Structure formats: C-alpha cells, structure tokens
C-alpha cells in the first residue's frame, strides 16, 4: 500500500521532470517532418526545390549522414555514383 503510494509519487515526479523534455523532443520531430514535407512538396506549391540547387553545397554537411543512411538501408557501398562516401 505504502509502496504503491511511493511509486505513484516517483511516477508523478518523473512526469513533472520530463514535461519540457517531451515537448522538446516532439518539437524536434515536428521540425524534421516539416522540412521533409517541404522538400517533398515544395515544387507543387510553386517553391523551387532548393535541394537541386544546393546539393553540391550540402555535400560536405550530409556526406556522413548519407553514409550512415545507405549502410542502414543495407547497401554496403554508396548507391549513387555522384556521392562517393566510401
């Protein structure tokens, strides 16, 4: 009985603590999704997709992530001849 109360108290305390954390995580997720959708649909709403223009400039920033990505996707070598990360 007492133990349950203590557990409930700890759960409550943890929830108070994690409130801003949950919010920040959700915000990061939403920002990523927003960017993703924008990149997907930008041309449909009349905004030129910056990805095409700036791919070369983005290269140094995304090369590591790209490498991790194609490894996760089960491709040992870079699938694109234009991006040679390995």
């Amino acid at each position, binding site marked *: 009985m007492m133990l349950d109360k203590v557990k409930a108290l700890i759960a*409550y305390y943890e929830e*108070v*603590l*994690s*409130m*801003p*954390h949950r*919010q920040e995580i959700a*915000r990061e997720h939403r920002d990523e999704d927003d960017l993703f959708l924008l990149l997907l649909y930008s041309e449909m709403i009349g905004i030129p997709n910056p990805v095409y223009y700036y791919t070369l400039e983005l290269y140094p920033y995304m090369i590591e992530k790209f490498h991790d990505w194609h490894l996760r996707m089960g491709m040992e070598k870079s699938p694109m001849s234009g991006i040679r990360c390995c």
Partner: protein
Amino acid sequence: MNAIAIAAIGIFIFLLGYRFYSKFVAEKIFRLDPDYVTPAHRFKDGVDFVPTNKFVLWGHHFTSVAGAAPILGPAIAVYWGWLPAVLWVVLGTVFAAGVHDFGTLVLSVRNKGQSIGTLADKLVGQRAKILFLFIILILVLMVNAVFAWVIANLFITFPSSVLPVFIQIPLAIWIGHAVYKKNVKMLVPSLIALAVMYAVAILAAQVDFLQIDLVGYMGGEEGAGLFGLGAVSSAFFIWILVLMGYVYIASTLPVWKLLQPRDFINSHQLVVGLAILYLGLLFTNPEITAPITNPNADDVSWFPLLFITIACGAISGFHGLVSSGTSSKQLDKETDARFVGYLGAVGEGILALVAIIAVITLFPTKEDFLATYSNFQEASAGGLGAFVQGASQLATGLGIPAEIAATIVSIIVVSFAATTLDTSVRLMRYIIAELGSEYNVPALTKTHVATTIAVVSSAALVLIPEGPQGFGSGGYLLWPLFGTSNQLLAGISLLLISVWLKKLGRNYLITLIPMIFLLFMTLYAMVQQVLFEWAWWGDQPSSLLFIFGAIIMGFAIWIVITALSALADTKQTIDPIE
C-alpha cells in the same frame, strides 16, 4: 516569538486564500467553465498544446517560476523588521500574486493560449505591445546584471561552492546527451548528477585546496589584486568575466544541451532546499531574534521600498510570462487554472516565507541582527549571505554540519541564479533580434551580434564601479530597479486582465486594486529614488542609476496613462457566453 508559529500562520493564510478567495475569484468573477474547450484540446498538436494533468502542470509551473529572486528579496527586506516582510509576502501572495498568476493563465486560455505580448496588442493596441517589449528588455537587462552579481558575490563569500557549481556543467551536458541521444529516462541520471554535485560539495567544504578562493589567492581582503585594484574587486571582476563568457556560450547552445538538463537537476534542488528548510525549521524550533520592526531603519523608509524590494515572493510579472507562455497551452480543464496558477504563486510565497524565517532566526540576539543589518546598504549587500548562513543553521537540525550545509545552500542559490541568468540572456538576445527585424537592422538578428550586445551591456551595467570600493560594490544597488521593472510587468498584465474583465462586463476591482497599488508603489519609489537620491542634486548622486531609474519611471508613467485611457475607452464588447 516562535518561528514555526510564523510559518504555520503564513501557510494557513495561504491555504485560506486558496480555499476561499481563489474560489470566489474563479467562480464569481472569472466564472470558469469546466466544459470550456481549452487551447490544449482545441489546438492539440502534441508539442505546445498538450492537455496535461493539473498536478503535473502545477509541478512544472512551480519549478519554472521559483528561483533565487524570492530568496534574495526577502533576505534584504527583513532589514525593516520581520513583520512588514512577512505581511507583504503573505498578503501580496494571497491578493496580488495569486490573482495575477491565475488571471494571466485564464486570460491566455480564453484567448487561444496567446502570450501577454500578443494580448497587449489585441486588448489595448500597438503602443501597449511596444511598451511591453521595452519593459521586458529592461527587466532582462536588470536580471542579467543582478544575478551575475549574486553569483559572483556567493562565489567570493562561499569559495567552497565554486567547484560543485562548475561540476554541474559537464554533468548537465552528460544528462542532455544520455536523455536525448540515448533515450535514457531522466530521473536516474539527474539524481546521480545531484549526488555527484553534493558529494563534491561535501568534499570542497572540508578540503581547503578544493575551494576556489580568488580573494585568498590574492592575499586576503587587504591584498592587492589586478590593475591596482583591491583583492575583492579583482575577484569580482574575474568572476563577472568568467560568468559572462559562460552565459555567452550557454545561451547560444540549443536548450536541450545545457539549459534543460540543468533544470532537471535544479528541480531536485528546489525540493531538497524546501525540505531542508522546512524540516530543519521543525527540528530546530528556533526563536526569532530579529526585531518585529527595526527601530534604527531611518536611512531608507520601508514605504514604499519594501514593496519593490520583495518582488518575486509577493508578486512578480515574470510569472505572467510563464502562465501565458507555456502553462496556458497545456491546461486540461479551465477550472484547473485555479490549482495551477493560484497555487503556483502560493508555492513561491512559501519559499519566500521560509527565506525570511532563515534570516530572522540566524542571529543569537537582536543586537547581532541590528549589527549586521546596520543600514540598508549593508542589508542589501549582506542579505544573501545571511540567508545562506540562516538556512545552514536550520539544516544543522537535520544533523548536517553547518559548513557543508552552507556550501549546499549556496550551490542551490547559485544554480537557480545561473539558470535565470542563462534564460534571461537568451531572452534578451531574442528581443534584440525582434527589435532588429522590427526596425530593419538585419545585423541585430544575427545570433552572435545579438548575444554580444546582450552580454556586453549586462557586464557593463554590473561592472560600473560605485563609490570608492571598486567593482562589485554597487551590484546590489540594481536590486530595487530589478524589483521595479518586475512589478511594472505585473502591472501591465493586471491591466490587461482588468480590460478583459471590463469587456466581459465583470467586476474588475480584484485586479484593478493590486494594479493601482503596484503602480503607485513603483512610481512613488522611483520618484523618491530618482529625484531625491540618484539625481546630481540628490543625496547620493549616481548618473547610471539616475538614467535607468528615469527610464523605468518614464515607463511607469506611460503604463499609468495607457491604463487610464484603455480602461476609460473599454466598454462591454465581448459576449460572455462566447
């Protein structure tokens, strides 16, 4: 007089205020509706708008608003004796702070969860919004200067607190990394961090070479420091530079890296601090040795300075920013506002109350109290030190040695102050950027330009030497200006609530009276200080204080005019059934 009795009476009045006054305000004036669809449900997005259990929301609200300010203000204000300070904290919380925090929460909930700044524009007009921005700008500037001074002051007085405070930074970064990158639950890492900090504190309190005592390194208080300054001035100068360098980095990092994880640790510290103080109070059962009213306090009158010396703890405009910024977007039911808003203010009142008790039970006799609190200047400079010692004396009742307790209490205060400093430098950066885009100065919108301006202006303000004692001697002089700008912010919020209530055709006296009271006190105090003390024809001429005081006085007059015209123009225009 027995201190437990004072605490019990104070808390009892808080509870009466919650049980009866807040019920009256919530049901008869604001007429809260349990079926009203709150923004948390209406705009539910899983990020900002999330319906949250009222207990959880209260916990979050309380830990966001409680900090070092409700400790420092009361620790200075007991100079006029304990009764005025206790009365203002208790009555201010019940009739002003509670209604203000609760009112801003409801106002925001009834207006799509918008913040006070946006509501100022909507309810009163563009002028009110600009006024609001400037008041916040001056408030954060004061916060930066005052809290940097508070931290430097504690580092110099309690050198054992330096190391544990700095240990907190890598620990917080570690928690941030564990929680956000590895998805570990945060309770355990943050408790480990707290344990490490306190272990270092216990070590540092007993081992001399772990104490970073800059004054000691330069040969004690009489020693010579840098550039021909005294040792204390040099130590202060170094700490301010270190702190400003630190906040520059801290406030430009993403919040999850340092600020948030440090908040997790600080939430524990708030619980630990309150527990030490109240349990210590119960176990030591101390007598109050400070006088009821100080017969020797004839240099600075309590009226009206008491009401701006204690800002947070009695009423604080900063709470309105939290109420309308985050809490209003997460309120599950409108009727929860009473619990979250009003009890949030009561929580801070309880902290301020125990801060008063720690100081007034510290001294063995009344004469000792009067010797330490010999004049207002001494009270302002030494109040915080007295609180730390008083709190550690209470902690001895729990079997904690006084040395260790003093180190831990000073760490708690420094941690609160550092988080406030970090947040307010960040806020200042945003405001400068907003003003930059408003007035077409694109350079100001750059992060590093805005941060540099924020940090340099804050450092300049706190470093400007006052009097012959050099750096750091005058930092506490800014405290009343901080209190004033905080009260003015509360004044604007109360005005907005009054205008809104009037538009609804309700009785708006419950917010109008605290507003008039606050504006009267701040104007009175500023006229007295600016025209009769700080002006070049005054008793203690100081061009810096004169300029800032005059600016704040100008704002106060501006608010009074805005209030008069807004309330005169307002007619019942909102359909109450909306």
